[in-house]
């Protein structure tokens, strides 16, 4: 088990009142599993990741975490423009004070393994959107987290890049044997990437359906070609009430 939500609720407080973002949420992400959480825009999906990462504590309920650290990947690549690609990748090492030569070497090996060798000394501004998102992923992986929390990491990309980066990220995460919790509002993305899709209601978010995805040999490309893809898409669409 990597992370388990048990009856978790969370409310935001503002002077004008309180907003229940998630309500009585229960689900589990196993080690090595890729879980996608989908729901309508603004249903509190990002809150789920903040809760999972421990950045905020639930108002009620319990969150259990397995061993291993968490790494965040956000909607925009959030690369620091004043740092080179290499320095960006080292950022989590510096923050977590794991800035040892060995950790740096590991991070660089990872970067080279996934085709960033020629870009290390460049500035992020010189990279394409897809390449920047790959740098963001390697940066997330650099500190050696076991679980990745992905907050609509492809939503800022144009459609073509998005498909490519989507497959790319899936590939790298599977190869590195990481656990992933993805939140997205894109049904097809969720089906293509994950081992399990969890559908949420609009705010306050509750689980309205859980679907294991087993077809297509775990490859996003093959999955999109499968007949089951359309069937699951329809089922999810109905659950989400779109």
């Amino acid at each position: 088990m990597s992370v388990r939500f048990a009856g978790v609720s969370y409310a935001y407080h503002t002077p004008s009142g309180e907003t229940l973002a998630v309500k009585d949420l229960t689900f589990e992400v196993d080690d090595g599993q890729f879980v996608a959480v989908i729901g309508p825009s603004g249903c509190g999906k990002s809150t789920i990741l903040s809760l999972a990462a421990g950045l905020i504590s639930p108002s009620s309920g319990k969150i259990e975490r397995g061993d291993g650290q968490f790494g965040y990947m956000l909607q925009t690549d959030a690369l620091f423009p004043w740092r080179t690609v290499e320095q960006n990748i080292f950022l989590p090492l510096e923050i977590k004070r794991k800035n040892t030569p060995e950790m740096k070497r590991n991070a660089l090996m990872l970067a080279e393994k996934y085709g960033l060798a020629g870009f290390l000394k460049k500035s992020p501004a010189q990279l394409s959107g897809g390449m920047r998102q790959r740098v963001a992923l390697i940066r997330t992986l650099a500190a050696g987290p076991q679980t990745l929390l992905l907050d609509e990491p492809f939503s800022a990309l144009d459609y073509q890049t998005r498909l490519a980066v989507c497959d790319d990220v899936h590939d790298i995460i599977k190869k590195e044997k990481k656990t992933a919790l993805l939140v997205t509002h894109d049904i097809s993305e969720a089906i293509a990437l994950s081992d399990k899709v969890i559908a949420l209601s609009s705010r306050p978010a509750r689980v309205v359906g859980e679907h294991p995805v087993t077809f297509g040999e775990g490859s996003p490309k093959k999955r999109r070609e499968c007949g089951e893809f359309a069937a699951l898409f329809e089922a999810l669409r109905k659950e989400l009430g779109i």
Partner: protein
Amino acid sequence: MKHKNTNYSADHARYLKRTKRGKIVVHAVRALILAALLGMWELCAQTGVFDPFITSSPSRAAKTIADLAAAGTLFYHIGITLAETVAGFAIAVALGYSCAVLLWLNERVRAIFEPYIVVLNALPKIALGPLIIIWMGTGYTAIIFMTVLVSIIVCIMNMLAGFAAVDKTKQLLLRSMGAGRAAMLTKLMMPASLPAFMNTLKVAVGLAWIGSIMGEYIVSRAGLGYLIVYGGQVFKLDLVMAATFILCLLAGGMYAIVAIIERIVVKRRG
């Protein structure tokens, strides 16, 4: 880095020529305006259209500068005003930046001090002149204090705005990595707000000159502001104009230095 392509098409060569010519025109017209203004002024003073006793003239101001230089007091006065301005500027920027960091670190402290900063910003600092003389004496400290007073608030407010404008996603990213306040500040807030800092320097340079000359108006025994006040009191308009010319050059020069530093910093960031 983009490689410079030296193989242009004829169209591109024309474009380059056109931009270059545009730049030359701007510089030429600028110089022409200055020359025309000085020339007209000189002419009017020479031919008696203006009374040079009241308006002075470029040649008389130049002669005054030469006389001051010959008497050996020119660089003394320049040095004093320059030292006061640079000291006040440096203190205001350093102190203002530190205050902004403190206010950023603690939201409640910021809320507490906000009205004080607003009032201090709105207050015409010259109103504090008598107090400053009584508290700080009539030496350089009073003038430097005035300089700091005039420029520090803008430094604080500019930097606070700079910190507030830092991308929230990047802040969330650092927090998710477990960054504390110190790491947040050094890894993200300070580098990200560098353009705001350079902007602050530019504004503070101008304000520092206002502060130091204002300070010298209130209380001084030397400096360019002193020369201007003294010249005005004894009706030596040549001295007033001479000091004002030098002030223009110095203020412009200091701004140019900051602008050059900005360009280097921005370039290095890529």
